[in-house]
């Protein structure tokens, strides 16, 4: 048993850094990030895989971290919103979100950005229709959708 009395000890590579921590079998990757590693950029909006706010990249693939057990991520690469751009710089998607005002409250934003980053990498951001379809797993209750589409379109063009 790990030192802090938790059931499992795992190692996550988070944003390029190795982090060892004790978790329960039921601990989600989302709670591990937020509560244990205090990386609160990844958001909890439903804890049921329904809103996309918790989207992170696991070995380069976008996943909802609330439906991923921390133990499943043992030994794997996790990229969160805190890790997509070097310190003091903006990722092109982040810059486009600011430029196009693609958020209001900002709570869905890290998840939107992580989805958008993956989408562009996957080559699935080639038209507005495609962006709308593939960004539909990320709810924005502030309703910034048209600006989100504009931001993703713009960032995709700049990154091409």
């Amino acid at each position, binding site marked *: 048993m790990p030192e802090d009395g938790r059931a499992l000890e795992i190692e996550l590579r988070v944003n390029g850094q190795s982090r060892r921590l004790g978790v329960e079998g039921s601990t989600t990757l989302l709670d591990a990030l937020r509560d244990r590693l205090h990386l609160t950029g990844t958001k909890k909006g439903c804890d049921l895989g329904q809103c996309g706010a918790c989207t992170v990249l696991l070995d380069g693939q976008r996943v909802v971290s609330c439906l991923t057990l921390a133990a499943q991520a043992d030994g794997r690469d996790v990229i969160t*919103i805190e890790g997509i751009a070097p310190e003091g710089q903006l990722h092109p998607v982040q810059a486009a979100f600011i430029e196009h005002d693609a958020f209001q*409250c900002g709570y*869905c934003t890290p998840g939107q950005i992580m989805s958008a980053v993956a989408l562009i990498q996957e080559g699935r951001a080639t038209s507005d229709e495609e962006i709308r379809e593939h960004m*539909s797993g990320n709810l924005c*209750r502030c309703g910034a959708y048209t600006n989100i589409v504009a931001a993703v379109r713009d960032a995709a063009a700049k990154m091409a």
Partner: protein
Amino acid sequence: MSSNAVIGSPVSRVDGPDKVHGRATYAAEFKPEGLAYAALVLSRIPSGRIKSIDVSLAMTVPGVVSVITHENAPRLPYKEMKKRPQVDPKAGGQLRVFQDDKVLWSGQPIACVVADSIEQAETAADLIRVTYSPDAQAQTKFDRALGLKPAPEAEADGRPGETQRGDAASAFDSSPVKVEGWYLQPREQHNPIELHATIAKWDGDHLTLWDKTQWVDNDRAEIAHVFDIPQDKIRVISPFVGGAFGSALRTWHHVHIAAMAAKMTGRAVRLELTRREQFTNTGSRPHTEQHVALGALEDGRLAALIQEAWGQTSTYEEYAETTLDPPRQTYSVANNATRYRLVHMNVNTPTSMRAPGVATGVFAQEIAMDELAVALGMDPVELRLKNYAETDEYKSKPWSSKELRACYAKAADDFGWSRRSPEPRSMQDNGQLVGWGMATAIYPSHRSPAQATVRLHRDGHVLLRTAASDMGPGTYTSMTQVAADTLDLPVEKVRFELGDTDFAMAPVHGGSITMASVGTAVMAACQALQKKVGELAAASSGGPFKGAASDTLLFQGGGLALKNGGGFTPYGEFLAQHGLEWLDAEGKSEPGAESETHTSSAFGAVFAEVRVDPDLGTVRVPRLVGAYDVGRVINPKIAHSQCIGGMVGGIGMALLEMVEWDDRYGRVMNANLAEYLVPVCADIVQLEASFVPSDDKIFNPLGVKGLAEIAISGVAPAIANAVFHATGKRVRDLPILPERLLL
């Protein structure tokens, strides 16, 4: 005074970098030392008593610190507030959580587990066994026959049971053209993406709350009354709010639980509601049924307008809305009657949700107006212009400003309304039925007393502070612009902080009042700072400003100068000359006589295009066009975002949103985001919002009217009217589900 014209320019959000980096810190994300985690148990019957509650198994879960139920919870004072804040219902009393064995609704918190980790707390909560003595008389069905007149306190607060102008009943009877119908607004949930959360921490007799709230000052006042402790022993911190739309106006009982749990355990405690818990613990837009009867002359002039509403409320509090203000004010009509009734049910108390009441009243009124246009064979815009209210006939006052005609003209033009063929089902495209519809939008503008402080620093930057909030509309940015504009500083030289009870008093962040209230206080603080600088300058023992009269000074370009040229001194240098590290000033603002002499309101016109699949009954909204009169626009970029956000909310209201209610058991059946549908990215195509020239200096010195609520007002009826135009079928129940179109 100002010259750099920061007001009115599309500045990018000043908190944008924090938000896109995930650095903006929301309530659940603070981490005081020794933080423990709380999980709730909710009731499973709508009414009755708890017979037994067995926590023994839960207590065996490792890491559990405490299990709180009505059996061991401290009896809290729950002192009555002398004057109820405007966010609280005016009659009845809030839930006194864990104070007795009563169950008032299904989904009410009846126990709370505190543990070292959230997993442990949730595991233990699942192991609590409860038995009930259910009340056979539970009121789980909405029944208009049970409708009661609002309490006198609610009537005095602008929610009258009846209003009457002229003789509406006989005018309706004798009208040559009449329409009449029943309209259903289902219960809706705000569902901000951020979950409601509170972290509570006691240091001796001092309590700190990190809370999701739209009003830190009232949060503090409420908790002070619940625990009967002085307000100065409480600090509430809330720098970022991840959306709320009204759900965080009140201090709900979960905040009491967090503070109670922290007190009982001696730990800092975080209580984050689950999505499911939010459906029954943070209010909702109330289920409301309405009857509208319109009578008109052949030329389209309204002869009678009757609107009645039955709204849902709880058994323990009377939440009343201003549902019927729109039918009293929007159009000119000599004979007007309204009636408002409340149906008390075993539900948690409803609350304000974006454009509370008004969105509901406008929805019924604007569909009825469309029906009247059809009955008259008249263009819907023309009908509205024919009945244009030049004054507020309800309050018998002039409008402080009203540019609604310009809104109709601009939106109709942008939309291409003149190309509409009026006949239903006459515009088809590619096998789809195309419909164009429109509606008027209205939302009252109010303001409340507010204060702000400003500190000018040696390096030439200023820090402004007020206990306001920013749940998304851009308070951080717009206030920065007001300060930069007033002081003629670049926005980078202004820092604005909010969301802390240690800061100067601010009113609720709701009802679209923030800009008019806090904005004018920020402006006043900046003007007070200039005055102080001027006085200091005049008192100098030498130099260019010695003895200078205030009207000879110019505050420009980050410094002070003489109007006749010369003497320019940057603020930093000025402070150094006077041996000061910084200079403080404060400002306040409050409504004046205009609130007695005038009615202030935002207005808009919304036009919708829909495409309806004739076989499936599915409705798509390829575009919405709105034009708004919201007074002066501080930041067109952010204001536009607010408008399209309201439109998205309106599309949800029109086509998707409803709490599925099981009226046998009094339960919410779809308490999650997969079954309570909200618009997703693929539902939204083209949204256009524009602002007509407007500047309401009667209402306040900034000329703003506020624009959060107006943006959802009118959207649902515009879509419903477009659906009628597409299909020839009038749907009066929201949301417009495919089955409602096909059956």
